[in-house]
């Protein structure tokens, strides 16, 4: 909802990026890479991000794109997991460690991490959609006592396309009171896990809606079916959170294009309770 009290801690020139250095790059999948950035003087990060907030990442001679900050490690780095889909992201995938790039932000409202305290958390993601949820998931583990049972349900097209494999298969399952379920769309030889789409797998796993909050992010078609399934499973509209993606240019509610009704998703979103989305025109 229009946020009139947004207290400005932002720069005097919100559309001008800060130059940062790429200090590490990790291949997450054949078309997703994580980029770790830090201030050029080696000290600290250009801004503080809350889980679910985004940054406008620019390869200056090419262009800019809105990317969720998948993790901020204290003052060490900001991590952006970026999928190669077009002009800018293709170029970003070519760069090497040491490259200077631009970032501006933080943008968006972020996840309601405080309002979720004390609740069981169910995270449901598809493909690159795990990137934004991961900031919330890692935040929960960092503040483990504040949250109840954690269920993570993640799917992608194939085994190779699963992002953050080490966390999915090794780190997260070891956390207390945590279950991780992973699925891929089609069977393949070196995969003995679950095969099938996320929504139907979720219905199989059937995480209880009692006192739980479900957080959903993925391709629009997955979100659509997951929301239907959650409803069937007894989740109310104020127990479901999702994050929206619209085309963005400015990130600060000025350039116009990311609106749904009178909301600007870059500024008022991208995180919404399903309950709030039901009041918006059906353009999401």
């Amino acid at each position, binding site marked *: 909802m229009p946020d009139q009290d947004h207290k400005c801690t932002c720069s005097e*020139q919100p559309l001008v990026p800060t130059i940062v250095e790429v200090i590490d790059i990790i291949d997450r999948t054949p078309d997703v890479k994580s980029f770790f950035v830090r201030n050029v003087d080696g000290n600290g990060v250009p801004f503080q991000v809350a889980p679910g907030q985004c940054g406008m990442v620019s390869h200056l001679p090419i*262009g800019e794109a809105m990317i969720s900050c998948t993790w901020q490690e204290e003052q060490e780095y900001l991590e952006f997991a970026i999928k190669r889909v077009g002009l800018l992201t293709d170029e970003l995938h070519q760069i090497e460690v040491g490259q200077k790039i631009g970032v501006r932000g933080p943008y968006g409202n972020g996840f309601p991490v405080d309002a979720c305290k004390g609740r069981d958390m169910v995270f449901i993601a598809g493909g690159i959609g795990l990137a934004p949820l991961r900031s919330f998931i890692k935040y929960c583990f960092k503040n483990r006592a504040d949250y109840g049972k954690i269920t993570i349900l993640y799917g992608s097209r194939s085994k190779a396309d699963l992002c953050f494999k080490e966390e999915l298969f090794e780190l997260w399952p070891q956390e207390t009171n945590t279950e991780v379920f992973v699925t891929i769309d089609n069977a393949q030889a070196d995969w003995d896990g679950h095969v099938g789409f996320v929504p139907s797998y979720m219905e199989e796993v059937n995480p209880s809606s009692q006192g739980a909050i479900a957080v959903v992010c993925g391709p629009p078609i997955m979100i659509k079916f997951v929301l239907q399934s959650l409803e069937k499973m007894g989740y109310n509209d104020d127990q479901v959170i999702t994050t929206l993606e619209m*085309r963005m240019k400015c990130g600060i509610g*000025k350039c*116009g294009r990311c*609106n749904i009704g*009178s909301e600007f998703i870059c500024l008022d979103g991208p995180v919404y309770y399903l309950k709030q989305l039901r009041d918006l025109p059906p*353009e999401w």
Partner: protein
Amino acid sequence: MKVLSKAKLEAALNKLSDRNEVFVPMQKGQQSGYFTWKSFENGQDELMLDALNVYQSPKNAVLPQTEKMYSIKSQGVEVNIDQTYEDAHPTIIFGARGCDVKGIIAMDDVFLTRGYEDSFYKARRSGNTIIANACYEPGANCFCNAMEVNSLEPVGADVILRDAGDGYVWEVKSDKGEAVTALIADLLEEKEAKLPEVKPFIQKVDYSGVAEKLKSMFDHPLWDKLSQPCINCGMCTYVCPSCYCFDIQVKMWGEEGYRFRAWDSCMFEEYSREAGGGNPRGASKERFRQRFLHKLEFFKERYGTPLCTGCGRCIIVCPTDINIVRIIDAVKEAEINA
């Protein structure tokens, strides 16, 4: 009252232009719009202070059609922004009508509120003074009165001019207005002047309740019918005094270049197309609906006032004869099935 006699108008514009870039409505070749007084060519160009709405609105003075943002230098792994281009040089919009003043005041809401101040807009606006020209005789397509604009007392003007026959009554409204008045103090006379009679509006438009009614009309079948002729050319958004949407692009020559912004339009398919090809407003109708809902509903919900200022320009330029007044009428008349 202070009066600027028409015989001294050119002297006043010359004087104001010493220290300011003065945008004045004029006909220049095929175009009419707000051009700088310095560019005025005697015998060729024609001052259009009497015309109600020249083709282009003065929004260019505060939100240029294209505007440089910052320089880029890129060599190997190094990249630098040596310069940003906030531009606060003094400008005056001379003779703006109430609808066009409202367009800028609406853009002030967008660019200067809600947590972020756009540094480029802020700079231009800080150097900008608006000298408005009150309207006593509305034109054939004017309906600003229906859109919460008072054309006799334009809110946000720094000076208001009132055409009193052989001179303009000169009413100062703000400190900025005071400052530009000081520049031409010796040209103003203190005398009585007779103001013209206020003529009625020809267009009868009733916007009351339209924003509220539209809230439940997103899926109404009337959009199919209304949008049918629209070819999404974007003319209406370009001539609009309050359409502010912009695109951000980059221009590089080898290792150097700059990022700039340029007017954009929700009527264009590319405007909201996402990576991967998805587009929430891929269909012509969806973009048409966005424009009119933004003007008549969304902006009012967010900022408390409609984004249409009633200038009537889009009615004149639309090649397919789409008329926002008829759209307001159609919404008023539409039946809503609960």
